């Protein structure tokens, strides 16, 4: 077995706040192979975005990585210096954010921004940089890229801006793209267009993709594997079809049951009672136990995640053959 492109080992990112330490990411481990799409799913506050930011060393203060390793192609990014990280960011690992206006500078033309991104990592001429920018725009499905290069971000619609952001991410044919909710703000038809482009590109270029989202539906259609996060930990991970078909962790099961289109029309949804615990005040042991119908005394000790392909962090998992709401 070859070494994975990205290996995250026991990653811990904490935020020191006045009210106490928030363990936003609390021992997260996963692997990502070349060309693979991993969906990192969780609700607000589960730590999924901070996990993505930690990989690239983009966590803002008071957040700090306090433990674990992020091995990218064998190199630990946690201990790598800022200079080394800058050489990797944008070139070998690209990032796409939810709001493309976070990526784009509103007062510079798209051409200026894209050419600058090319020149930041490659010693090429301006004409060559411009040609590559134009090609990248064409690849994400922007019509008449030559004219659009001269435009400013505000002249694009939301979906087009996100395409420009993706085009910038693709400029250096990165090995890995970290995408943080990139289609959440977009309309359904535009989202489908973006997913289509991303799917095609990953297949053609062998780029690995970490897709951070709250939307199980998008992940189920796009990803090869999925990791479900709750309160800073991965609670279940596995090949996407296995997890959707036979969720073992009660939280995963609850999430799937909460999706309206998987329930009979008009019948009350099987929702998860209660709400996510405050990250300042996590219960002892399994963080999900206050909301879990299966919890008992054993749950006051945190279960481990087995090293299997389909693994879960639970003492009382659902049976593999018991179908979820998918029936």
């Amino acid at each position, binding site marked *: 077995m070859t070494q994975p492109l990205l290996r995250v080992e026991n990653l811990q990112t904490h935020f020191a706040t006045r009210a106490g330490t928030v363990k936003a990411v609390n021992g997260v481990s996963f692997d990502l192979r070349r060309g693979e799409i991993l969906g990192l799913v969780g609700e607000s506050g589960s730590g999924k975005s901070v996990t993505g930011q930690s990989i690239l060393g983009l966590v803002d203060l008071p957040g700090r990585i306090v433990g674990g390793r992020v091995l990218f192609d064998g190199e630990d990014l946690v201990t790598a210096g800022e200079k080394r990280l800058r050489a990797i960011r944008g070139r070998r690992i690209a990032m796409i954010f939810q709001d493309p206006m976070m990526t784009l500078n509103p007062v510079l033309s798209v051409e200026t921004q894209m050419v600058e991104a090319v020149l930041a990592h490659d010693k090429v001429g301006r004409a060559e940089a411009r040609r590559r920018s134009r090609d990248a725009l064409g690849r994400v499905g922007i019509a008449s890229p030559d004219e659009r290069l001269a435009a400013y971000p505000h002249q694009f619609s939301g979906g087009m801006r996100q395409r420009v952001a993706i085009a910038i991410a693709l400029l250096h044919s990165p090995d890995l793209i970290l995408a943080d909710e990139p289609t959440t703000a977009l309309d359904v038809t535009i989202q489908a267009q973006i997913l289509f482009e991303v799917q095609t590109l990953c297949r053609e270029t062998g780029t690995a993709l970490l897709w951070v989202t709250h939307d199980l539906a998008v992940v189920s259609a796009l990803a090869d594997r999925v990791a479900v996060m709750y309160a800073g930990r991965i609670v279940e991970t596995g090949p996407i079809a296995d997890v959707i078909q036979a969720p073992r962790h009660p939280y995963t099961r609850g999430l799937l049951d909460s999706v309206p289109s998987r329930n009979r029309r*008009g019948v009350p949804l099987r*929702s998860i009672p209660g709400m996510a615990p405050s990250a300042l005040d996590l219960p002892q042991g399994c963080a999900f136990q206050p909301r879990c119908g299966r919890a008992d005394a054993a749950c006051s000790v945190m279960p481990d995640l087995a090293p299997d392909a389909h693994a879960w962090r639970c003492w009382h998992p659902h049976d593999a053959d018991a179908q979820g709401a998918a029936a």
Partner: protein
Amino acid sequence: MTQPILAVSGLSKRFERKLDVVERFARRLGAAVDDSVLHAVSGVDLTVAEGEVVGLVGESGCGKSTLGRMVAGLLTPSDGAIHWRGTDLRDLPPAGRHEANLKIQMVFQDPMASLNPRLRVADIIGEAPVVHRLVPRRNAAEAVAEMMRTVGLDPGYMRRYPHQFSGGQRQRIGIARALAVKPDFLVCDESVAALDVSIQAQIINLFMRLREELRLTYLFISHDLGVVQHISDRTAIMYLGRIVELAPTPELFAAPNHPYAKALLDEAPRVTLEKRRFAPIRGEIPSPLNPPAGCPFHPRCPHAMPRCSQERPDLREVAPGRWSACHLNDAF
């Protein structure tokens, strides 16, 4: 058929932007600048029966929120009429209109933006019924407590401020505020869109329980097809300010008639076991400042005919209870 609780006919809303000084001067010099008019909603007809849930679906900019705001009385229509229990709101004396408006309440998307952060929950929920003399001031606390229990909040939290609640609880406060004046009709504008999936399910269940308990009628506006499919009896799909298809929900989701409805349903993400190949419709929604002639969907439609770019199809009944605005239905 019994009288519908709400009927809108030919309802339109235009937002106009007047020219500024420089532009007026430029026009005098012969430049081609005009007042720009945005047709947010154009000629919408819709009836809602008592106790019914009508889902209103569409992408951003299609006018679904503007339609909802006109129904709730927050925007004045440019054209067309709103009939409340058979009476045209324009024909009512101010007092009567006031009363009708009170019966139609609205629940918004972002509870943090729609709740006053400096008021306590007791005031947020209790203010309107006291002002409208539905509840004497000395009984306000009781009424608030009852409202909070109705929506599943602990009345003990009455003295707290909105920021002390979670997103789902805040949405419950917003619902309690709407319900406090004893409405018959709720306009829910993306009321579950900002919530996490597990919390969203709780709020959807709450809406369905309240419908039974309080005999409410809903206009449920959402971009999320799964939510609308789950909760609504009939579904209307809007595109560029017009309803393009209106049908009973199960029939519409089983076999959409309009090409836009079809495309929208195909592309809605669903939790599936198989990986999907996305095959999107091309292009984007045209600007409502400059809508295309003929059928608004024709530039993106895979079945467009020459006729589609010249003549706008009317919303017609293509089968009992099913309405669609597409020329393809004439071919047969």
